[in-house]
C-alpha cells in the first residue's frame, strides 16, 4: 500500500501489539498502520477483541506488549489524548442534561475544532430542534447521533469508532459514512469496528480481520 500523500509518517502505527486477559490471549500480535486520509475497518465476530483493541489504542487498557506510534512518535498519554477521539458503546451523556448542554460539556473537556459550533453540529447529525430535549428522552439512535456530533466537534485527527453504525437507521448509516469521508478528506484517519460488511465508508480503506485465538 502506498504511503499517504498528506504526511510521510503514518498517523497510527502498531507493532507487535498483544493483549491478554486472565492469561488468555485476546488478540495479537498485531501489526498495522493507518495513514492520514485512510480508514481501517476492524472486522471480527463477537468476542474477537475489536472493542478491546480500540480501548487499548485509546489508552483505556494497557497492551501487554508491542508499541503504538502516533505521527511517528511513541504514543504518550498526553499525545494520545490530543490525537484520538473515541466513540465507545457508552454514550457518556448525562440523562438530566439536554443535548446542547451535554455537547457543550464534552467540548469543554476535549476541546473544539475552530469554527465549529455545537448548535451547527446538532443540525448536521439531524438533531436540529432537539437542543432542549433531555438526553433521557432521546432514543438510542438519537443518542448515537449526539455522540457523533461530539465526535464531529473534536479536534482530534484520529477517530476510534466502536460500532458506529449500531442503533442507526439507513439515513444514520449514510451520515456516519459522510462524516468519515469528510474527516478523511481533511487529513484525518479513522478506525472503525464492525461485525458485518453491511456498511462501509466509500473511502480508501484497509481491513484488519480479528479472529478468536485458538
Amino acid at each position, binding site marked *: 500500500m502506498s504511503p499517504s500523500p498528506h504526511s510521510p509518517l503514518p498517523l497510527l502505527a502498531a507493532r507487535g501489539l498483544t493483549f491478554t486477559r486472565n492469561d488468555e490471549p485476546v488478540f495479537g500480535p498485531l501489526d498495522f498502520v493507518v495513514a492520514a486520509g485512510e480508514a481501517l475497518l476492524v472486522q471480527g465476530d463477537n468476542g474477537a477483541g475489536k472493542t478491546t483493541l480500540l480501548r487499548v489504542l485509546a489508552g483505556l487498557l494497557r497492551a501487554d506488549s508491542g508499541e503504538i506510534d502516533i505521527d511517528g512518535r511513541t504514543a504518550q498519554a498526553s499525545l494520545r489524548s490530543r490525537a484520538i477521539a473515541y466513540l465507545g458503546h457508552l454514550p457518556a451523556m448525562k440523562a438530566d442534561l439536554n443535548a446542547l448542554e451535554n455537547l457543550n*460539556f464534552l467540548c*469543554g473537556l476535549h476541546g473544539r475544532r475552530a469554527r465549529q459550533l455545537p448548535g451547527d453540529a446538532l443540525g448536521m447529525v439531524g438533531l436540529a430542534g432537539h437542543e432542549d430535549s433531555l438526553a433521557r428522552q432521546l432514543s438510542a439512535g438519537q443518542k448515537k447521533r449526539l455522540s457523533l456530533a461530539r465526535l464531529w466537534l473534536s479536534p482530534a485527527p484520529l477517530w476510534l469508532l466502536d460500532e458506529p453504525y449500531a442503533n442507526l437507521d439507513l439515513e444514520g448509516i449514510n451520515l456516519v459514512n459522510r462524516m468519515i469521508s469528510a474527516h478523511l478528506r481533511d487529513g484525518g484517519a479513522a478506525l472503525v469496528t464492525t461485525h458485518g460488511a453491511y456498511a462501509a465508508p466509500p473511502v480508501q480503506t484497509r481491513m484488519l480481520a480479528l479472529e478468536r485465538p485458538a
Partner: protein
Amino acid sequence: MNGPSLLQAGSALLVRDLRLLWRRRGDAFQPALFALLVVVLFALALGGEAQALGKVASAVMWVAVLLAGLLSLDTLFRGDADDGSLEQWILAPVPLAWLVAVRVLSHWLTTALPLILAAPLLGELLHLPRDQLPVLLVSLALGTPLLSLLGAVVAALTVGMRRSGILVALLALPLYVPVLIFGAGSVARSAQGLDAVGALLFLGAGLVLALVLAPLAAAAAIRIALH
C-alpha cells in the same frame, strides 16, 4: 489541535455538576437534610437541657457533617462510571487528577458548604456556647474539604464494584477518624480554655497534603477500576 486549558475543562465540569444538581435538587439536599435531622433529633433527645447540649454541641455538629458527607460519597463517581463519562474524562487532554479535584470541589460545595453556612443556626439549636463558634467554623472549614478529598480516594477505589455502599463506609471510616479527632478536638480544647491552634494546624497540614495527593491517588484508582 488545540486542547482545552485546565481552567476551561474544570469550569465545564463544574458548570455541568451544578446544573445536574439543580435538575435533581430533591436528591441534592438529602445530605444537608440528613445533617439537619441528626442535629434536631439530638437536641430533642437530650430534652433541651442547655448545659448538657452545649457540652456535646460541637461534637454532634462534627458527626452530623461527617455522616452527611459519607452518605453522598458513593455517588461521587458512580454515575459518571455507569454512563461512560469517566472514560471520556480519562481520554481528555487534561490530567484526570485535575478533573477529580474539580469533582471533589463540587462535592464539597454542595454537601459541606451549606452546612458550614448553617452552622451558626444549628449551633444555636444545640446551645453551642457562642465563644466556641469561631473555632468550630474554622475547624469545619479546614476539616470538611479534607473529608471530601479522603472520601474521593475511597469512592474511586470502589467505583469498579456494583454495590459498594457499606464498603465505602468501612474504608472511609478509619481515614475519617483522625480528621474527626482533630476537628472536634480543637473545639473541645478551646472549650477547656486551651489553645486550639495546634489541632487546627494539624487539620491544615492534612488538608494541604490531601490537596496534593488525594486527586492523584483517586485518579490512579479510577484508571485501575475501569480496566
